[in-house]
């Protein structure tokens, strides 16, 4: 009960722009919807449990007059038991359908066939290494700890590590994908808002894992072409 009070307060404190809930790409938007859906369904469960909990606790708490009473044993009620078995299954089914959908949609594009590069995408090689990120563009240009992307175009990343496992994470643009030595993983998304977004390594990778951060700059198509030509 006490805990419930400071939940909204914290939400306010945290500001309403929590990164994972403020998507700036199609992929991240799918994830945000899923987060809200699962949160809503789960809050329903939580509220039901809390209502029963508080109600039973107040109603059946020992009172001065019944300290020495012995309550009768209650028999199990089949219908109650069926209810709390079937209702959760229904709730979970509601959640499972979009889960399966989104998982198929997003996972096949990230872990799927590495060779069939989608057309009209900006292809970028991402190399993780203790403790920095190197980005290599189609024309051979490289940048360190700064990923630059054109807005509104599909970015298609192929990721690989030179040493241990890392994980590529830009909360506002996409979920994580792990980065392995000796194996390529893929991630793609369409950024739909210009801006600079924080990126971080999300898999513990050694002493300075904390410092393995990078920025993702999403700029207009023209600026991007310009940037590619520099140097």
């Amino acid at each position, binding site marked *: 009960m*006490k*805990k419930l009070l*400071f*939940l909204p307060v*914290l*939400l306010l*404190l*945290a500001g309403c722009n*929590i990164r*994972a809930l403020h998507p700036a790409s199609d992929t991240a938007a*799918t*994830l945000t919807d*899923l987060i809200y859906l*699962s949160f809503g369904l*789960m*809050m329903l*469960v*939580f509220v039901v*449990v809390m209502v029963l*909990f508080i109600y*039973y*606790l107040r109603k*059946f708490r020992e009172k001065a007059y*019944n300290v020495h009473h*012995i*309550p009768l*044993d*209650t028999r199990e009620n089949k219908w*109650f038991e069926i209810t*709390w*078995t079937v209702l*959760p299954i229904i709730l*979970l089914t509601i*959640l*499972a359908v979009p*889960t399966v959908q*989104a*998982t*198929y949609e997003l*996972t*096949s594009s990230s*872990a799927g066939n590495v060779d069939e590069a989608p057309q009209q995408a900006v292809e970028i090689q991402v190399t993780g290494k203790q403790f920095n990120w190197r980005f290599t563009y189609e024309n051979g240009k490289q940048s360190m700890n700064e990923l630059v992307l054109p807005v509104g175009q599909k970015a298609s990343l192929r990721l690989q590590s030179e*040493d*241990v*496992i890392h*994980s590529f994470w830009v909360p506002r643009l996409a*979920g*994580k994908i792990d980065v*392995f*030595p000796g194996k390529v*993983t*893929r991630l793609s998304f369409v950024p739909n808002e210009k801006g600079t977004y924080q990126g*971080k*390594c*999300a*898999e*513990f990778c*050694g*002493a300075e*894992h904390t410092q393995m951060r990078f920025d993702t700059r999403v700029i207009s198509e023209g600026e991007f072409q310009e940037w590619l030509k520099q140097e």
Partner: protein
Amino acid sequence: MNIPFIGEVPSDIVVAWIISILLGGFLFSWVTKAGKWQVIMKYAQTTHHRKIGVMYLLLAVVFFIRGGIDALFIRTQLAVPENDFWVFQSQKYNEVFTTHGTIMIFFVAMPLLIGLMNVALPLQIGANDLAFPYLNAVSFWLFAAGGVIFNMAFFFNAAPNAGWTMYTPLATDTFTTEPNNNYYILGVQVSGLGTIFTAINMIVTIIRLRAPGMKLSRMPLFSWSALITSVLILVAFPVLTIALLLLMFDRLYGTNFFMGEVGDPVYWQHLFWIFGHPEVYIIVLPAFGIFSDIISNFSTKRVYGYTSMVAALALIGLLGFMVWAHHMFTVGLGSMANTFFAITTMLIAVPTGIKVFNWLFTMRKGIVKIRTPMLFALGFIPTFVIGGVTGVMLAVAAADYQYHDSYFVVAHFHYTIIGGTILGSFAGIYYWFPKMTGKMLNEKLGKWHFWLFLIGFHLTFMPQHFAGLNGMPRRVYTYMWEDHIFLLNFVSTIGAFLMGASMLFFIWNIYYTCRFTGGAAADPWNGRTLEWTVGSPAPEHPFEPMPRIDSLDAYWYAKINKKQLPEAEDVRPSPIAVETFQPVLLAGVIGIMSIGFIYGWLWMQIVGAGASLAFFVIRSLTDERKRVYEREEEL
């Protein structure tokens, strides 16, 4: 790095040595002055389940303090952005969260529950001891040896630093060359052996030594949970044993299981989580059992839905083996694997939900008496439900691409582990304290402990959900102002210190109770199960004569009908206690062998292995039952 050094050694280690030596000296002189050496020697030789259980609990509390201090270092370093607290940045921070996690799982959660099982399980089912008392002592001392090995690491400036999950290739000798992570491998391996033996012991005890008439379907739920947990241990821990062995070969003998051309780092993740996910159920099911018994006891009512409670325990145990890859959603196993594991994970919510509603309905139409053990059980329900619902959120594979390895996950598993295992262990300690010591913990101090702990807990971990969603990865030693997670972290740190303060009440309570009070009754809580028929503390041979059981909660129904439990005649012979230093010494030489492996000293490995083997031979040639049988034949 700007680690303050004193001479060659980082200052935190110097401080730790000084404090440990002072504390050690103080303890030594106190024990000598109080003339307690005899007691300690007695405990070192014991094979009695209650004494071994108490030793498990004591050592677990000691390790809890160590792990808790680690947690406070973590939280202090993270209190404000771009902080530089003492030495805890970079590799030092990595060591602290690695030791925190490992100690909390293997050397706190496990022994707390195994300790409570040792104390209460034989008493609940009418057994005079565990089936193999000698093996039980070996289990305990192996656990103790593992704990000592693991904790030693820090004092020699070699604390493990690859996280409690030891992901390869970071954990192989290519990337972490020093002996640090060898300490993890050997420490966890040795204590894990003890755990496997305990599981065998519990299973045999439950199968063979129940009181006459106590069918499995009349067994209290804590005993049921102990049975199912033991089965899980027996299946899951050998996987850990093998994984650690392979990693040890990679580190010490140049094999390439987890990297290189033929090896693969993902193999490690599979092996680790095939053990690791059942492990989280291993540490939560006994807590469920404790809560079931306590909620029934203090609602003055039979537990609601006994059969479905048992079925749910079994189902959770079974499903627990089919969900391991939900820790690997971002590895890129493919959409097929990810959806499969997403759905099995969601399914676990169903039996868990059944249990929650059964607990609520046990309270319904009862008379709920709020004593300290019940208070912890009541705190558990909302806390664990929050942990459970975030668990379902994490099961949404695609959404987990956002949550994974962020502080959202840290919040989730602390809600389940602290909400389940730790609150459960506290509840169990308050509940069974009279059976261990013959004294009752103070209710007022217990309430302080509970409220401070619970409020501190939610303050610590509720904000971490939001920090995670706001992009804070786990296992980072600092963050920046522009990350906008300062307030969340600051509140979290305040909460952590509240939890620390609550532990002072707990420890003071134990000290105060043991020192200044006495004489608990046999049945202080008006209990329902067999442990309350025997004296407090439980005597060496509690069930003489042996009762006959004819229903669930037989003792309770005998009480309200003002009758005695009938006596049984056809009783199985009790396990035979011995007094022996062999288990301690065996664990000691295995410890020596382990140090040999950690530092690669061949002579030490040989000495330790030879000595261990000698103990096997001695043990194979002794049979303490012979003595007893001969005496029986003479009669």
